[in-house]
């Protein structure tokens, strides 16, 4: 403690409203955060003074953060278990469905068979790819509803005729939070993940993001 000669700390820094207080005098540094009056009409509840202390603390923290070159990744590393850390560290590639769990059919597949694939993989959609495995479109539960409305024969219609061509895609090195943003912005429930040649490598949906704690 100050005065005992064996201080357990390197320095005591105070934020007080009274530089003559015992606490302020004991400190190596006292930052004056006094306020002319509290917002509380009785002058009792700490209102303006707590706000002032909070703001001064932010001023110190942000000044330090900038001087140290603290990055978003540093932040994530110091809060790895929290939502912030997850939003900053988790990538699409970490949570997407791959291999057998990835719903996909070739171009020209009959709608009937595409539906079987959708049901088997349970992502509410299937990717439609060409012979080189490049994404040409997506067929979703929503597309199915719109198709039923048009009395299409699922036994004779190729999925290409009723799918959403192109579709919105993401990349494996994208942050999961970025994937979520894309899905929300486009109001879609699933995102196909492609490589640099637009070949399908994975897929994820809102449930995956929910399970991963990104949303």
């Amino acid at each position, binding site marked *: 403690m100050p005065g005992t000669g064996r201080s357990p700390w390197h*320095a005591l820094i105070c934020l007080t409203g009274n530089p003559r207080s015992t606490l302020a005098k004991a400190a*190596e540094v006292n930052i004056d955060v006094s306020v002319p009056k509290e917002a509380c009409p009785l002058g009792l509840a700490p*209102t*303006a003074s707590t706000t*002032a202390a909070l703001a001064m603390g932010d001023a110190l923290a942000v000044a330090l953060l900038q001087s140290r070159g603290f990055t978003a990744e540093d932040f994530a590393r110091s809060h790895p278990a929290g939502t912030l850390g997850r939003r900053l560290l988790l990538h699409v590639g970490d949570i997407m469905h791959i291999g057998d769990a990835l719903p996909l059919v070739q171009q020209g597949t009959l709608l009937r068979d595409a539906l079987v694939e959708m049901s088997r993989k349970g992502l509410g959609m299937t990717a439609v790819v060409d012979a080189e495995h490049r994404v040409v479109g997506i067929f979703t539960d929503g597309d199915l509803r719109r198709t039923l409305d048009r009395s299409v024969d699922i036994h004779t219609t190729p999925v290409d005729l009723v799918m959403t061509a192109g579709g919105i895609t993401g990349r494996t090195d994208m942050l999961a939070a970025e994937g979520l943003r894309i899905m929300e912005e486009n109001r879609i429930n699933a995102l196909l993940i492609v490589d640099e040649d637009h070949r399908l490598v994975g897929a994820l949906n809102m449930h995956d993001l929910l399970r991963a704690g990104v949303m």
Partner: protein
Amino acid sequence: MALDATAGEADEIRRLGCAVLETEAQAVSALCSRIDGDFVRAFCYMLECQGRVVVLGMP
């Protein structure tokens, strides 16, 4: 008064809320002039700190 404040009451409620925010905003604005050598010294202590900074408050 229940859930339907009269126009006059609503004005008064808004005035009370605004007054608090203005008081607090003034308190924060006034801090700029307090950012002096002490602030810089506090900053330097923490920048040089190799261990942890323990933050606590007391009423």
